């Protein structure tokens, strides 16, 4: 019961702040609601006893990505941040796509409703040593996907560096100071 209540509290905060993220006029306020969403998702992970995942969620999304978001937002003059157009003219297409997506999700949930069985409630962790388990599974059972993901990220980093350097007419890449 307690677990369920905690889950619903975090889920509600996550959903409400996610709506606030896309409706605020001020980009920094949006970023703050994004922080609330990300932290409540970490809370949901915790209520499901996935401690390692919760820690990684906070460190990567809040400590890394969100800080970079805010960093970039700060470099934009604040009056432009507030009066920038937030919506483009593709509202109808977006509405149709969203409706299709929601339809698919509802269908999937109805089809797989037997899978939503809540485990026995307990104050003890489901498995001892959550981080050890994640490490073992990641580096033994799923080593290949893990390595593929890291190569993908490496390519993205190199790509970002190459794109951010302006190329000279002679084909050489100039380093921008």
């Amino acid at each position, binding site marked *: 019961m307690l677990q369920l209540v905690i889950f619903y509290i975090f889920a509600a905060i996550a959903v409400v702040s996610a709506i606030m993220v896309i409706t605020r006029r*001020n980009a*920094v*306020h949006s970023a*703050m609601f994004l*922080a609330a969403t990300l932290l409540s998702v970490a809370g949901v992970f915790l209520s499901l006893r996935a*401690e*390692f995942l*919760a*820690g*990684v969620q*906070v*460190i990567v999304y*809040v*400590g*890394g990505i*969100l*800080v*970079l978001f*805010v*960093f970039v*937002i*700060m*470099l934009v003059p*604040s009056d432009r941040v507030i009066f920038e157009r937030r919506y483009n003219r593709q509202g109808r297409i977006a509405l149709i796509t969203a409706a299709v997506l929601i339809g698919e999700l509802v269908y999937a949930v109805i089809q797989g409703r037997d899978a939503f069985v809540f485990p026995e409630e307990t104050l003890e*962790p489901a498995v001892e*040593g*959550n*981080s050890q388990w994640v490490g073992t599974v990641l580096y033994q059972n799923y080593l290949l996907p893990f390595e593929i993901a890291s190569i993908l990220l490496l390519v993205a980093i190199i790509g970002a560096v190459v794109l951010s350097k302006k190329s000279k007419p002679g084909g050489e890449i100039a380093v921008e100071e």
Partner: protein
Amino acid sequence: MDFFVDYILEPGVKIGVIVLVLPLLVGYLVLMERKLIAFMQVRLGPMRVGPHGLLQPIADALKLMLKEDIVPRGADRLIFIMAPVVALVPAFIVLSVIPFGPSITVPVPDGFQWPLQFVEREVPLFITDLNIGVLFILAVSSIGVLGIILAGWASNSKYPLLGALRSAAQMVSYEVALGFSIIGVLLLAGSLSLVDIVNAQSGDGHWFVLYQPIAFIIFWICGVAETNRAPFDLPEAESELVAGFHTEYSGFRWSLFFLAEYAAMIVVASLMVTLFFGGWLAPFGLRLLPESLAGIEGAFWFSAKLLFFIYSYIWFRASWPRYRYDQLMHVGWKVLLPIAIANVVATAVLVLLLEG
């Protein structure tokens, strides 16, 4: 009843002690800093309030609470008010997983009947021991930087914005090398839990600083940079940026930033003691007090080591000039990070060879 004692009374009392003691500790840390820097510069430091200025922190706290609270016009009011809290809360939360000592035995009431019956209870000197301890600390303390950035942005003023930008770049850069320097210790201890890391160092003088001296030095430097202390105090460089990100703050809100900075200092120093210097373990297996008082002795050794690293912060501040911004980035990315990664690889290979 057991549920009440285990999950409400015991953590509640410990959290209360930390929340009450930490601000007092910070107050006297500031006095210590002022006095030590004064002595290093052949001055006397605060002398007027109390004998040798011993009541100065209390006078300062009163002054800060009574000062006018100013929110500049043009500031984003909500975020301006929120920022000091965002900076302070993570620093306090992190303290919940730091092991200050082993267990002590205290009598606790057994039930609510009168007269109270007391039973002996073993109480560990930390709030909780998490399986993801070190990860938790890195995760929660990375939220603290948001408070500084928000403060700089919400002030709607040039110097705070520049200070906040510097601060964000600096903290994100040094976090990377800091994380890598911890991995060496984690490889040796085989656990992320801080209590397990301390226990892995028990035995005569097997502190991890002996196996990981390079990682320790990197951690030390990055720890000073993460807390925005001299010589890495660019975010609040008073000769260039007035006071950096907290220029527009005054009174109590300003003191919250101050509290956050000193709490972060205490956290980083505690981490150094825990990861590299055996936490509460006595050097060379010394034993000053009988077995029954082992908890108090542990807390003593922890505090002694902690005080040394706090002293080192002040010593650095009095000794070294501030880095230039490009030097700061150079040191962080091109010197500390490669060394830290090389250290991780070397440690991993050695651990594998010696164990396998």
